[in-house]
């Protein structure tokens, strides 16, 4: 029989205001096993914990029930307090009488009655608790960063600077990400590549950072501290060690009609290519779908011109297997497809473009060499209309429910840059709200209006109407002046919503990291653990977690790095002891449990057992404690009840049921 102490917290008036705590203490004394019951204003305080300590020592308690706030809040606190007093921390159960009781009920009698029942259920559970000991697992002192944009670059640099090796896996042929596609950055208008390129170089040169470009994560196994990751290095068809990056192959390549991904399809590139001039690594890849050699077997010009002999048509995809202690996801974003927003005529006119396309047009390395011109006829636009919130803040399935956060600022930036460089070009912005929270952000937007004369109109655009003369008639609303506006424009720029990069759901699934309905990775706690995934050992960096701009991304990247470093700095990790166990005398060895285990933690062994005198060899399920995460799927699949979960055993849950229904 256990010797149980029940501690009822007032939480100031948070609990005591609605629950008669004295009554709960009084009722607790009648419960089986309870030898001590008391209440206190703040159980989680030093003084409260001292009371627990004292009672454990004096009354020789073997189990604790703390009636307080949610176990998600202070279970660890009370477990630690128990441990300090020499009690096994898993002999502690929490009755949640705050979030699940005092805060939601008003009637004192009702709330007290419920608190008593919750206390009873917890006592019933403790009565069946057994001391548990967490296992230990090692930490592989190496981190993986998935995604080589500014988020991944910053995280990798910070981790490497702390002395841990880092691998970056980047899907495209170069690191750099979205930021490398930008021309200028707000609110300071520095040139994007001027601040990014040095960082790319730094990553490339860092002795502890290893970059896998043109590579993807193929599979992830293991758990915090000990992940095993397979990385598919796609065949580049160019030997990274031999290539000097001279660029002659690209120049001579006869297949030049592929659309440049880097320039958002606004220009073409050769079949053998580096995405952009400052690419890291500066080693081209052959796009095998476009390459004449791969399509017809004839050509081979690049191989002929390459003096370094780096071209290797026979290269195969390579699978690299590596172990990591921590994984940082930095998979970034893309713009949504606009095929369901054709009222803006995006697919009908070349002069309706997205903001990211404008970014490329404005860039000196872009398709127009940095000249602002219409893609239809190359003429300089004199009248440009920007449309905000295209696909953002949308309640139906055409767009996204969230605010994309960066569009207000980059549109102000674009408007300002255009007005600055082309003063005779008029710029009109149709907006719903201008959202500029951030240091120097509103000032920046006001400058666009006040110093650069950008015309901001509050109201959406209903339709963009291409005219026979090549102009675009923009039909919008001016809600302040109560007018419907018809404006003839030469170019229309759409601030399309951003969304997490394609493929992130697949990665999240491999990592068993939670992901929300918009495909953003979920943080462990929205406020208190914003850069960690609920899955241990997985950290979040950049837009994969939610829309954010560059400074925020860099901050988060640093924060994710610190969290990863904190993990890598440990020599050992304690594992969750609430794992499944199979009773070898009851196990049928039927393999049903392994079918439902998401972690592959169950294997089968032929084991000699002594079943009440009968010795025989049986096929028995064995759970790997290090892999088991304690979900319990196996326990329900097991018909004989051989498989049970420590800390949430069948008998414990039934005892809670009984206590509640009593």
């Amino acid at each position: 029989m256990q010797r149980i102490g029940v501690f009822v917290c007032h939480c100031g008036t948070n609990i005591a205001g609605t629950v008669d705590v004295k009554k709960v203490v009084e009722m607790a004394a009648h419960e089986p096993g309870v030898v001590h019951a008391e209440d206190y204003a703040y159980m989680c305080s030093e003084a409260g914990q001292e009371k627990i300590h004292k009672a454990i020592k004096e009354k020789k308690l073997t189990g604790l029930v703390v009636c307080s706030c949610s176990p998600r809040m202070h279970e660890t606190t009370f477990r630690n307090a128990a441990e300090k007093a020499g009690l096994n921390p898993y002999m502690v159960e929490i009755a949640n009488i705050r979030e699940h009781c005092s805060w939601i009920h008003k009637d004192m009698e009702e709330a007290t009655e419920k608190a008593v029942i919750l206390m009873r259920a917890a006592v019933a559970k403790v009565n069946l608790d057994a001391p548990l000991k967490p296992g230990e697992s090692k930490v592989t002192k190496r981190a993986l960063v998935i995604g080589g944009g500014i988020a991944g670059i910053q995280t990798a640099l910070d981790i490497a600077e702390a002395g841990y090796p880092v691998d970056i896996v980047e899907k495209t042929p170069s690191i750099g990400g979205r930021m490398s596609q930008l021309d200028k950055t707000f609110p300071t208008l520095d040139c994007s590549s001027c601040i990014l390129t040095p960082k790319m170089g730094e990553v490339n040169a860092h002795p502890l950072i290893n970059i896998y470009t043109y590579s993807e994560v193929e599979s992830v196994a293991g758990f915090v501290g000990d992940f095993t990751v397979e990385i598919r290095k796609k065949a580049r068809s160019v030997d990274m060690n031999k290539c000097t990056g001279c660029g002659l192959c690209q120049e001579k390549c006869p297949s030049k009609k592929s659309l440049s991904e880097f320039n958002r399809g606004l220009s073409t590139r050769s079949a053998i290519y580096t995405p952009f001039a400052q690419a890291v690594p500066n080693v081209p890849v052959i796009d095998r779908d476009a390459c004449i050699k791969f399509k017809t077997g004839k050509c081979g010009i690049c191989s002929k011109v390459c003096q370094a002999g780096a071209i290797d048509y026979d290269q195969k995809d390579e699978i690299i297997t590596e172990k990591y202690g921590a994984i940082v996801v930095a998979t970034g974003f893309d713009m949504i497809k606009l095929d369901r927003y054709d009222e803006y005529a995006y697919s009908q006119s070349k002069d309706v473009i997205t903001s990211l396309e404008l970014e490329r047009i404005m860039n000196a390395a872009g398709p127009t060499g940095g000249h602002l011109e219409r893609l239809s006829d190359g003429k300089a636009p004199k009248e440009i209309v920007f449309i905000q919130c295209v696909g953002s803040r949308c309640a139906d399935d055409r767009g996204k429910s969230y605010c994309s956060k960066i569009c207000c600022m980059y549109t102000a930036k674009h408007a300002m840059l255009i007005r600055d460089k082309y003063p005779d070009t008029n710029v009109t912005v149709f907006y719903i709200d201008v959202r500029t929270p951030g240091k120097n952000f509103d000032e920046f937007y006001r400058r666009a209006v006040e110093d650069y004369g950008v015309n901001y109109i509050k109201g959406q655009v209903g339709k963009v109407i291409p005219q026979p003369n090549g102009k675009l008639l923009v039909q919008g609303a001016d809600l302040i002046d109560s007018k419907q506006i018809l404006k003839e424009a030469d170019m229309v720029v759409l601030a399309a919503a951003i969304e997490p990069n394609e493929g992130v759901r697949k990665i999240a699934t491999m990592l068993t990291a939670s992901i929300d309905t918009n495909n953003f990775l979920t943080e462990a706690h929205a406020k208190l653990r914003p850069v960690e995934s609920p899955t241990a050992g997985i950290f979040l960096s950049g837009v994969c977690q939610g829309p954010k701009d560059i400074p925020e991304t860099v901050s988060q990247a640093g924060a994710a790095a610190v969290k990863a470093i904190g993990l890598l700095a440990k020599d050992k990790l304690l594992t969750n002891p609430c794992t499944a166990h199979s009773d070898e005398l009851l196990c049928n060895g039927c393999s049903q449990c392994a079918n439902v285990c998401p972690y592959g933690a169950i294997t089968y062994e032929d084991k000699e057992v002594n079943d009440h005198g009968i010795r025989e060899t049986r096929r028995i399920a064995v759970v790997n404690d290090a892999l088991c995460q304690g979900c319990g799927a196996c326990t329900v699949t097991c018909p004989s009840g051989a498989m049970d979960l420590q800390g949430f055993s069948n008998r414990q849950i039934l005892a809670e049921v009984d206590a509640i229904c009593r």
Partner: protein
Amino acid sequence: MQELINRAKELLADGTVARVLGWKAGDLPYNPEPAYFEKEEDFADFVYNGFCGANLSKYMIEASKLEGKTLVCLKPCDTYSFQELMKEHRVDRDKAYIIGVGCKGKLDIEKIKAMGIKGIKSISGAEIDDEAETLTIDTIYGEKSCAYKDAMLERCHVCKGKDHMIFDEIIGESKETKDADRFAEVEKIEAMSPEEKFAFFQKELSKCIRCNACRNVCPACSCRKCVFDSNKFDSAQKANVDSFEEKMFHIIRAFHVAGRCTDCGECSRVCPQGIPLHLFNRKFIKDINELYGEYQAGADLEPRTPLTDYRFEDAEPGIVAERG
């Protein structure tokens, strides 16, 4: 039958198998029982006729632990159970020599008795070599007869088919006996009002004496120790009262075999109280077919069963209320 016996003797003699698992005649003309035959002279009692309903696949769990191979006679429907047991690593394929025996539908003595045929001395027409059209029954009141079909077990009217799913060789012919809709009875219950449903099952289950015959015969219910006999759930069996315990037992039993039950119908066949226990299993089978796609347990060796598998777009539990 003679062919079967000859072949069994031959395999015993040449050492291919160490024993034969079949049926031997009982004390009445209609109650043969499963038995091992290890020596030639044992075969004097060997029978295989229309009353050999027992599914021998479950016996192979124990037989798999014995030295040498066991020749087992499996009817087409028994082979589903055998494959399901293979899937669950409960029987050892290498320890079995399977003779797929022909089947023309198995007989239900209760049905014959229900026709008013009493005092049975002997029955002819039930041999496997017979045409299985008519039974001639010699009783102390004289000779009676009935159509073979009318005396068949319910399960044979909804037979899964005359093909053996797994075998080493086949002896004897099988016959298609299906002439009813497998789910008709379930549908009839589904159409009842909640009160009628409750009354129906209350009436049936109150007959249960918890003799565990259903559990013991069931090839899917083969746990070393049943949860209802262990302290894992504090659910050790209680005496029969007109209350919930029996429903719990039968629901959980059906749930534990859901997706694994081949619908062999042994539970209903052996129930001494005549409770139509297959109605539980078949309800699950019907739901599984409708919600997760047609599935026949034991038809293949794929490891995942419907309850250890899922689809993202599976129906929500609310569908139960929606379809009313």
